[in-house]
């Protein structure tokens, strides 16, 4: 029981950092530290991660005037919506209900904090804050999907969907890195 609780707390801490990337540099992404998740929990957390990035993007469209930032935000909405739509179709096909879980809750709570932080910024400060958060967020999400979700998933369709989603998220990570460089955020 103690070990399980310790694991959940460790995972939760990681996901707090994942959701609000401030301090994410110190995150221990060792998958072995994190509790096993079942397919329904993985589906829920993966869907939550996509939805969170869509909300970051809507915030960017509401605040930023920078063309590259706005194009990136539109891309995030388009691509994550497509991934989540595919996830929804799979859930419907399998006739299952994704399970809310501690990681999803922590992820959403951390993201709410990060959105509040970003919403207080404007101009170049917002653009850099958003861009850097997107880079860190995708780095951490990608590591989690690749090292934890995909190995743990047991339903072949879910595993395949996660693999396809990972290709999308890795492209986003590269794009975000380029955006950070071009914005000269220092």
């Amino acid at each position, binding site marked *: 029981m103690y070990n399980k609780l310790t694991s959940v707390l460790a995972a939760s801490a990681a996901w707090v950092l994942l959701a609000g990337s401030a301090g994410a540099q110190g995150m221990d992404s060792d998958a072995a530290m994190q509790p096993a998740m079942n397919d329904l929990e993985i589906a829920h957390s993966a869907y939550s991660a996509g939805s969170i990035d869509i909300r970051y993007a809507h915030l960017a469209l509401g605040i930023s005037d920078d063309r590259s930032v706005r194009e990136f935000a539109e891309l995030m909405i*388009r691509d994550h919506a497509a991934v989540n739509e595919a996830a929804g179709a799979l859930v419907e096909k399998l006739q299952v209900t994704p399970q809310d879980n501690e990681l999803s809750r922590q992820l959403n709570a951390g993201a709410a904090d990060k959105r509040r932080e970003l919403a207080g910024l404007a101009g170049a400060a917002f653009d850099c804050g958003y861009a850097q958060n997107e880079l860190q967020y995708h780095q951490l999400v990608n590591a989690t999907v690749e090292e934890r979700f995909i190995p743990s998933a047991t339903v072949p369709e879910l595993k395949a969907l996660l693999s396809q989603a990972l290709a999308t998220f890795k*492209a986003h990570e590269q794009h975000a890195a380029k955006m950070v460089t071009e914005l000269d955020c220092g």
Partner: protein
Amino acid sequence: MTRIRPMRPARLLVLAGLLVAPAAGAAAEPTVHTVRIHQFTFAPAELAVRTGDAVIWVNGDLAPHTATGSDPQWDTGPLEQGQSQRLAFPDAGTFAYRCLYHPQMRGTIAVRGPRADRRPSSPLSAAAAP
């Protein structure tokens, strides 16, 4: 004993026409090439075709993509997963293209001619074909 009569020249011409006509018709048919979009790449990224040929882009990714020529006259438009679009290339040239949404995705269609049996009205129209 069966006797074989020599064929008259007029009949030979007709027969030759029958033999040649289908071959000429076949040459007019465009070849259709396929570019698969997979994991944010066009495969093949570089494709050589002949004038009048067509290219079909098929999106296998979850994310929507486009194949959009540097010349904005041609564009597949958004392709959702599983969707495809066929474009014809009536004129010779080398045409670079990219995905509008993911600019790192790039490709080239090298069109060698001549074989413009059927020329759409617009040059480089890569016009959407059914």
